[in-house]
């Protein structure tokens, strides 16, 4: 006697615990793999790398088994076409690979297990222990403001929200459908009656006509009363829902020296730096505006293409960029509403005497408004090897060091190679757990 059990309604994810264990276990592997990939990979590609397949060696389940090659082995196959005993078949050149007839039956090894990461997962891991200063604070405190968004119409609501247009069109449709006499029809009828009544000595036919018209008018008026011009049924109200609005809007200023001394290499490095910063901010903020300010001896706001690709000639006066940035902030990005981030890239050259002004501007005008200001100085690889001390450097570097010493949310680094960017970036935005914030 068979016994049936319907298990379909049983909880499905019986292996959820196993799955979690597995994900927890691979997390370390994945993180390692991601870090390795990032070091190898062009940083600008990180964003595009939709999925990275990671061979997870650490999750192999080894056991003792015989090798696929070596020794003497005999196996039986099916589907002989024209082989005879004693025939010889050349082995494929590539050793064990190739057609791999001998090994095929054993199935694929565990090495094939691939764990695909989505872009989001990849970036999450990539940014795992990165954090911008004050962000923790801000995100913890983050008060969501809400804003009313239209969400169609409803049949009840406050009179202030009546949708006249929708109400009137409903009423019109209903009036047409129920055949309510229009004001004009009533008026026409009245005029006819009036004309008949004016006749001093109406014929019998006219009298009858008049009576008929009176009756008709009466029904019309009654009908008008019964079928209202606007019925409560017609009334519609605008409907609003409160949607949370992230108050964390961010603007990111990209400042770059585009004078002739900045070659392709320098620009490319700077771009990667900006991309990375932008990526990180876009994880945090729903809305990020980008402002590109380039400067030579004169600064101007430009679009992204111009920023990275057009060439300018001229001297180098860094402070002009800061002035421009300040101007834009004042015009468009009040610090009360926007989180302001700035990233500046330069080769370190500056018009002599200007650096002190830059430092001064930063300290007094810009830094009070900014969440964070990151400065990178792009140097030659040769140079990087020579300058082994943070203290040494050109004028701008030295001036900025003064700022950095003063402010915790100002960071500066030298980079020489693409490979430097990521570590530098990490260091710049590394979680400030050691209480560096009070500095």
């Amino acid at each position: 006697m068979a016994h049936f059990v319907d298990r379909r309604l049983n909880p499905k994810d019986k292996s959820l615990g196993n799955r979690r264990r597995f994900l927890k276990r691979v997390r370390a592997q994945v993180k390692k793999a991601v870090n390795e990939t990032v070091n190898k990979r062009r940083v600008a590609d990180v964003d595009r790398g939709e999925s990275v397949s990671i061979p997870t060696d650490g999750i192999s389940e080894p056991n003792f088994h015989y090798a696929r090659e070596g020794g003497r082995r005999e196996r039986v196959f099916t589907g002989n076409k024209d082989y005879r005993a004693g025939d010889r078949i050349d082995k494929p050149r590539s050793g064990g690979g190739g057609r791999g007839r001998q090994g095929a039956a054993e199935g694929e090894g565990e090495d094939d297990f691939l764990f695909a990461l989505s872009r989001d997962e990849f970036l999450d891991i990539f940014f795992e222990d990165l954090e911008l200063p004050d962000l923790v604070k801000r995100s913890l405190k983050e008060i969501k403001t809400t804003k009313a968004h239209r969400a169609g119409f409803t049949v009840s609501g406050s009179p202030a929200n009546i949708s006249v247009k929708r109400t009137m069109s409903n009423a019109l449709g209903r009036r047409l459908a129920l055949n309510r006499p229009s004001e004009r029809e009533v008026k026409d009828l009245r005029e006819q009656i009036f004309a008949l009544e004016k006749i001093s000595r109406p014929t019998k036919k006219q009298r009858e006509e008049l009576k008929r018209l009176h009756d008709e008018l009466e029904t019309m008026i009654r009908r008008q009363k019964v079928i209202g011009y606007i019925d409560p049924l017609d009334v519609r109200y605008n409907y609003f829902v409160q949607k949370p609005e992230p108050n964390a809007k961010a603007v990111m200023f990209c400042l770059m020296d585009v004078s002739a001394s900045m070659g392709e290499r320098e620009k490319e490095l700077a771009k990667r730096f900006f991309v990375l910063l932008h990526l990180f901010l876009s994880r945090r903020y729903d809305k990020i505006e980008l402002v590109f300010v380039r400067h030579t001896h004169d600064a101007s706001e430009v679009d992204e293409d111009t920023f990275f690709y057009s060439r300018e000639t001229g001297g180098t006066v860094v402070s002009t960029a800061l002035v421009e940035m300040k101007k834009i902030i004042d015009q468009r990005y009040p610090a009360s509403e926007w989180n302001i981030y700035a990233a500046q890239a330069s080769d370190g050259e500056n018009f002599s005497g200007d650096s002190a002004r830059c430092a001064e501007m930063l300290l007094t005008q810009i830094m009070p408004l900014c969440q964070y200001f990151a400065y990178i100085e792009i140097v030659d690889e040769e140079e990087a090897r020579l300058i082994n001390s943070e203290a040494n450097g050109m004028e701008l570097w030295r001036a900025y060091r003064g700022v950095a010493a003063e402010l915790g949310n100002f960071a500066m680094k030298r980079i020489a190679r693409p490979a430097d960017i990521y570590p530098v970036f990490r260091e710049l935005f590394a979680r400030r757990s050691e209480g560096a914030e009070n500095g």
Partner: protein
Amino acid sequence: MAKRSRKPDLLFEGSDWDFDKLQRTTEAIEEVALQDLGLSVYTNQIEIISSEQMLDAYSSIGMPLMYRHWSFGKHFLHHERLYRKGMRGLAYEIVINSNPCISYCMEENTMALQALVIAHAAFGHNHFFKNNHLFLQWTDADGVLDYLSYARGFISQCEERHGVDEVEAVLDSAHALMPNGVFRRRRPPRLSLREEEERRLGRLRAEEEAVHYLWDTLPRRGAGSAAADRERMERKREMHLPEENILYFLEHYSPTLRPWQREIIRIVRNIGQYFYPQKQTKLMNEGCACFVHYYIMNELHRAGRINDGAMLEVLHNHSNVLTQPDFDDPRYSGINPYALGFAMMQDIRRICEEPNDEDREWFPDIAGCGDWRRVLKDAWANYRDESFIQQFLSPTVMRHFKMFALVDDASKPYYAVSHIHNERGFLELRDSLAREYDVAVADTDIQVVDVDLLGDRWLKLRSVKRNGVPLEPADRDATLIHLRRLWGYKVEIEEVSEGASMAS
């Protein structure tokens, strides 16, 4: 068949199933299975599950209850990925060797498919589990569910007490040695659940006592060299070396494991042992199930209880599963055990009923005896894959599959065709195929040969190379790390060729 009094109406029509139809159909199948074929089965418990649940079941090696381990999650993700991509379908059923015999059927199956699956699993496999000597000797169908639930409970208890990571580490290592945790030649004593529990508590007590040196009041013996030597010999003999069951050895003699760790190893070992007969009888088990479902469905169709449409669907699925691609076909992945098993059993029936001269020469005992039911049931009960092939693989089947054997010698730049399906080759071909299905040949032969428990506690293993085939080096080393973790001291493996193993 006997009861023709019931009117032979259709059991079902169309592809939708419901529990009434299932019940009716199962009863009809049961009638054929028990009355006509004379099968003897455990009580059936047929469970309808969804595809997600099937994936769940897949990931925990097909068992209804299992302890938690990341590797099951890994298998789940693996299967899920393949399934979601449409690269692989799910099995229609999973059947568990337990009493009552639990079969899982997918809800997506059509009614015809459910009938096929029930005939296949709930009667074919079920009969095999209940009657094959290997299952009877090595597994405990009555106790397996209890044991699994005990194992699950025990391991989650350990996780609470010792931390998930600690437990996971032990399980990882034990899993690595699972294939080497099987008694191949001698039978372990079978214990009931309660005895099992008592034994565990007893061990725990003994272990605790051993730690309390205060109770150890006897004066220690001086380490006279002769006495020590004798003692060592004694110890080695006591340890039953050489020992093929590495997990068993670790469980009993590892100097570093704690009692709960030994118990986990024991659990893994027992589960490994439970699956060992399945490994030895894949061909027969599937062949038996296919033969049974094929026979039953045909009988039902003949009796007019299922219509042509359903029968065509059944046959379509039947032949899908039983395809044997040729060796040069891209789909080829070895000999399909379903196809070969089914073909051999159909052939046994043919030999019994209408033998030709060749059959009379090869199978004088059964040729023309007519009672194929008895012959098959006898085979199902008393053979395993290797001996079954050795005994029953007929020239007809070998010709049908166009079998040929290939020798791959690492030292030669070519493969040599050693035998083909002709008069001269049949016997050798059969031997060769039987060897292929002999797990004792396919599995590694690794034994614990020596350990000096009183000295350096250096665990020495010996692996026998079969036909000069070495162990896969990367996996060997990775597994040795696990072994080392469980043993706690140095571990060494020596690979010897076949002749040498006899010498010492």
